[in-house]
């Protein structure tokens, strides 16, 4: 029975049209991802046109000159090279120099500067002064700063201890490998998720709308399993198609993009990107986390739209609700977070995970301290599942006399 429900879904014209458009969007996203990596060659020329495709791999090759542990010696070498250049050209070095040297170590130098200060804007301004600092003790400065962060954000002894434990897991010295592709792809995966929650919500809602849209409900609900197994199968079809479409989409996006720009740096610590994040993970794990959160967001979107459609017998609300749940909340979430910490738990958190990973949001109930991201993931995974029986109840309890969409 499920097989026929799935067949019905994929044979639908709307499904075909939307999935084709979605695929097109994914291809555009791949293009954007590849296009967002810049590379300047040793002559100071930035790669353009079709050769741009090679930027990711060439950049990684250059940067990987520095791979391995970022020892104080290595950092000193980098900081001094940069300092000299800045001196030589009064702060405005030419593109040739950028292509030859700066490009390969810029990320490392910025990270080094950030180890001295958690203020990322100051870290940027101070990059040419890293050489003047006590690089021999850079990791000491970094651990001190981490300790300060733990004290600042841990408002109770339990929280402070929790933060110290998390920070304690950071491997020092940090092991470096070029990771630009993961950084780029985390951003583009989020763009994909931004679209997929809408597309998936709409398609899943369609599964519960089509009987009413086509006036086929009377045949459906008078069939033997029309109020039992057939409805369960519809719900299953919703969950399965959500899963297939989401993972196929992000699979295509990842395969093409990583295939072109390379996947160097899976194991590079995320801390190089965000030195004071208490999520001690690698770049690859960060990408995986983004994908999983996007999947939960898509499931939630599907559950909510299926539920509303099963209740209202129309798609109309189903299209706008994911939009409010995610996109509008992203916009009002930021000002809202000034007022209430509830904004840490709204569904939009799931689709802007990269921003959340940088923020030290921790909470405490009793003695249990928990972090925002895992909590939100579990919360909405549960909400998505809890909604399913309600979808069943709404749909299978159909009464034609109360049908809101009946044209009489």
């Amino acid at each position, binding site marked *: *029975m499920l*097989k*026929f*429900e799935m*067949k*019905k879904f994929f*044979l*639908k*014209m709307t499904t075909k049209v939307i999935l084709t458009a979605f695929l097109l969007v994914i291809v555009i996203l791949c293009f954007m991802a590849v296009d967002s990596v810049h590379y300047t060659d040793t002559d100071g020329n930035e790669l353009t046109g079709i050769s741009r495709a090679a930027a990711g791999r060439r950049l990684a090759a250059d940067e990987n000159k520095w791979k391995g542990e970022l020892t104080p010696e290595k950092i000193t070498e980098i900081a001094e090279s940069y300092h000299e250049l800045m001196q030589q050209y009064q702060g405005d070095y030419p593109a040739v120099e950028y292509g030859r040297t700066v490009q390969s170590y810029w990320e490392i130098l910025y990270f080094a500067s950030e180890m001295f200060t958690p203020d990322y804007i100051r870290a940027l301004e101070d990059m040419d002064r890293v050489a003047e600092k006590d690089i021999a003790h850079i990791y000491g400065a970094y651990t001190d700063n981490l300790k300060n962060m733990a004290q600042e954000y841990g408002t109770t002894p339990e929280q402070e201890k929790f933060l110290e434990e998390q920070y304690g897991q950071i491997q020092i010295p940090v092991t470096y490998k070029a990771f630009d592709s993961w950084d780029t792809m985390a951003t583009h995966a989020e763009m994909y998720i931004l679209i997929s929650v809408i597309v998936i919500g709409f398609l899943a809602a369609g599964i519960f709308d*089509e*009987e009413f849209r*086509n*006036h*086929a*409900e*009377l*045949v*459906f*609900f*008078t*069939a*033997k*399993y*029309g*109020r*039992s*197994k*057939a409805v369960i199968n519809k719900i299953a079809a919703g969950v399965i198609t959500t899963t297939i479409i989401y993972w196929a989409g992000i699979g295509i996006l990842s395969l093409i993009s990583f295939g072109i720009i390379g996947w160097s740096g899976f194991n590079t610590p995320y801390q190089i990107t965000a030195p004071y994040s208490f999520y001690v993970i690698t770049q690859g794990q960060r990408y995986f986390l983004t994908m999983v959160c996007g999947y939960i967001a898509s499931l939630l979107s599907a559950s909510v739209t299926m539920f509303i459609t099963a209740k209202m017998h129309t798609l109309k609300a189903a299209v706008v609700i994911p939009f409010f749940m995610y996109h509008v909340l992203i916009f009002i979430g930021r000002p809202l977070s000034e007022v209430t910490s509830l904004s840490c738990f709204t569904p939009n958190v799931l689709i802007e995970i990269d921003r959340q990973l940088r923020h030290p949001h921790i909470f405490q109930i009793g003695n249990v301290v928990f972090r925002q991201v895992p909590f939100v993931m579990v919360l909405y995974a549960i909400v998505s599942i809890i909604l399913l029986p309600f979808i069943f109840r709404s749909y299978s309890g*159909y*009464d*034609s*006399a109360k049908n809101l969409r009946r*044209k009489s």
Partner: protein
Amino acid sequence: MELRFKNVSKKYGEVFAVNDVSYSMETGVYGLLGVNGAGKTTLMTMLCAVTRPTTGEITWDGNDIFKLGERYRDLLGYLPQNFGFYPDLSVSDYMMYIASIKGIRPAAAKKRLKELLEMVGLSKYRDRKMKALSGGMARRVGIAQAMLNDPKILVLDEPTAGLDPSERIRFRNLISELAADRLVLLSTHIVSDVEFIAEQIILMKAGKFFFTGTSDELIAGMEADVWNCKVFGNKVNEYMQKYPVGNVKHVSGGVELRILSKTPPSENAVREVPALEDAFLLYFGEKAGDEDAEI
């Protein structure tokens, strides 16, 4: 096998769509006749357990059909008046889907599908998209889907709407074939659809059954005779005002009218054998069905 209505009513707001109906049905063909808005569809949706009666009870062999649920729906085949389907599916995909929600195994469903499409004359179109079918073809698929589970109770709401005259005749024969060992309830406002195939006629008006019985009983009970008289063209209106008038036929030198009246409406009036159609005209005050339906 007994389907019974006990004081069944359905109210929409202040309007009774079905008003205190009590009736019992067994195997055989039941023709439900009534004008637009009489409550036929409402009655049928209640019988198919998709509309709950406001008051009263519907039972199958003594059990409430809403409580029987799945077990009752397993016996049911229903062609709704406003028969809708999934436009992007092919005829066979559509049938296989309906078979699946009716709990028929794919292997059995395939066999059944073949038989049914042959029966409704659509074997050639099994791979055609549902949306590419003509209205009449779609309705035939509708009948076929209702038959998929070999139902004990077959409910057809205006099954002949949209069928062409030859299709109508085919359809009538089909129903007679299907009727064996089944309860068939079919609604229409076209008398000829049920005249020869329905063992029981139910006349429904404003939510009530006001006649139930055989076609012969209905005709015998008419309190008027049927007359055929030829009048001048300019007199037609006058007769129309005065009597219920059935067929109007233009002939040389005037117009032939089929008139219902206790007394002869004119000197040259000839007594005719009354038919079901005349009873319909008498009781509903309007002509049964539309002109092109008269075959």
